[in-house]
């Protein structure tokens, strides 16, 4: 038997088991046995090749399809990461403008300062109004007191007018007793009486006015009390709440900024993983080349089958066994020598290969 079958090949299909050596045979029987062996070897080799070739082609097709799908997924993933990166950058830029502004007068800090300044002014204004209201209430009380005094004075005036009127009446009576000597005095008494009447009438009018002023004062007092009763703490509390709100907004903005930063980190991690995927996807090329080497090796087996057929033909054509066997051995040796050159892929892993710059 040929040395072709003595050892396992460096790679490729499993070695074919050596058939049991034929028993010693008489002349004629040896040739018959050799013919049987040759036909058997050729049929076995062809059968293996015919079985393995479509199997390997199928593996190649499946791998190519899987790689194609993975490539599309990779592209989609990459586009998504790019999109996420773009969105994160946009959000980051917006937040940066919001927090820092494009100038000193813009940005979240400037806005916060403006809001707090406005609130401070508003509260101070409210406090001033409150103080003015207290002063106004004091003035209303003062006017009411003065008005009350005026009413007392008017009462005295009315009483004086009454007494004056009474005096003029007495004077008229005394003038009547004096007859003609009292005529002039009667005239004076009449005038005094008229003045007393006018004084009484004026006092009534002034009293009405004072009463009206008092009513108006009471209304004003009620309004002032209503304003004064407003709790200034509300304004102060509102200011505090607004401050807390602004601070909360600022915190939220920083939180969002931090999250966007995390998104960026995540995108960088994915990009790094994409690099690994790009490296590993090259398995399709490595597998394809390996399969092609296997297919070439199968072609080699077909060559062996042809060699066995040629050997059979030689025997049938009457060539001496020794010569036919020598020719077979030479052919198989040549095929084996050619076979070891097929293997292009040496790497057994998907680690990145060496780089050599000349």
């Amino acid at each position, binding site marked *: 038997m040929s040395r072709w079958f003595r050892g396992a090949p460096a790679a490729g299909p499993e070695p074919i088991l050596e058939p049991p050596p034929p028993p010693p045979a008489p002349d004629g029987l040896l040739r018959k046995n050799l013919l049987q062996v040759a036909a058997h070897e050729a049929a076995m080799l062809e059968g293996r090749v015919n079985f393995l070739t479509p199997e390997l082609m199928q593996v190649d097709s499946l791998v*190519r399809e899987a790689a194609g799908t993975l490539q599309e997924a990779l592209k989609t993933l990459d586009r998504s990461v790019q999109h996420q990166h773009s969105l994160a950058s946009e959000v980051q830029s917006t937040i940066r403008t919001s927090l820092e502004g494009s100038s000193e007068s813009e940005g979240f800090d400037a806005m916060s300062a403006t809001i707090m300044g406005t609130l401070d002014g508003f509260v101070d204004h409210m406090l001033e109004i409150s103080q003015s209201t207290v002063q106004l209430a004091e003035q209303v009380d003062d006017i009411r007191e003065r008005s009350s005094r005026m009413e007392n004075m008017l009462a005295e005036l009315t009483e004086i007018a009454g007494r004056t009127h009474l005096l003029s009446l007495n004077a008229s009576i005394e003038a009547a007793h004096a007859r003609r000597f009292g005529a002039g005095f009667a005239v004076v008494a009449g005038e005094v009486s008229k003045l007393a009447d006018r004084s009484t009438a004026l006092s009534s009018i002034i009293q009405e006015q004072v009463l009206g002023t008092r009513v108006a004062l009471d209304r004003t007092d009620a309004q002032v009390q209503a304003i004064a009763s407003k709790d200034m703490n509300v304004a102060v509390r509102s200011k505090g709440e607004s401050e807390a709100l602004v601070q909360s907004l600022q915190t939220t903005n920083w939180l969002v900024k931090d999250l966007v930063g995390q998104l960026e980190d995540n995108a960088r991690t994915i990009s790094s993983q994409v690099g690994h995927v*790009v*490296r590993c996807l090259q*398995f399709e090329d490595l597998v394809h*080349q390996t399969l092609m080497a296997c297919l070439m090796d199968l072609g080699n087996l077909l060559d062996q089958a042809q060699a066995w057929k040629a050997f059979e033909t030689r025997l049938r054509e009457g060539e001496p066994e020794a010569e036919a066997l020598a020719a077979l051995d030479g052919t198989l040796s040549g095929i084996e020598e050619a076979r070891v050159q097929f293997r*292009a892929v040496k*790497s057994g892993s998907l*680690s990145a290969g*060496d780089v050599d*710059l000349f």
Partner: protein
Amino acid sequence: MGHCILTVDDSSTMRQMITFTLKGAGYDVLEAADGVEGLDLAQGKKLSLIITDVNMPRMDGITLVQRLRALPEFKFTPILVLTTESDTSMKQKGKEAGATGWIVKPFSPEKLLEVVNKVL
């Protein structure tokens, strides 16, 4: 003006992975499926770099390097060989043909970009 790189490989997966990596870094990329197509595509183009496989139908990568070096416009253009072949004898053939560097598959995108940036 950006750099234009020609990649020659009979594996569409390899071409896509190389293109994906280089385009991601901002380079323009042209693709050819073998040496003959690569040589046709290269002529008349202003290429900054050529990356070629070795084992390809019709014309292998070593022959492509030799043919390109024979053209005046590609006398000094960097040519990188990207292949599964890692034998020293094959590397020597590539070097003698005029290749600038030899990268064994599979490549890592970072390393490829590092080499590309170095030779450009």
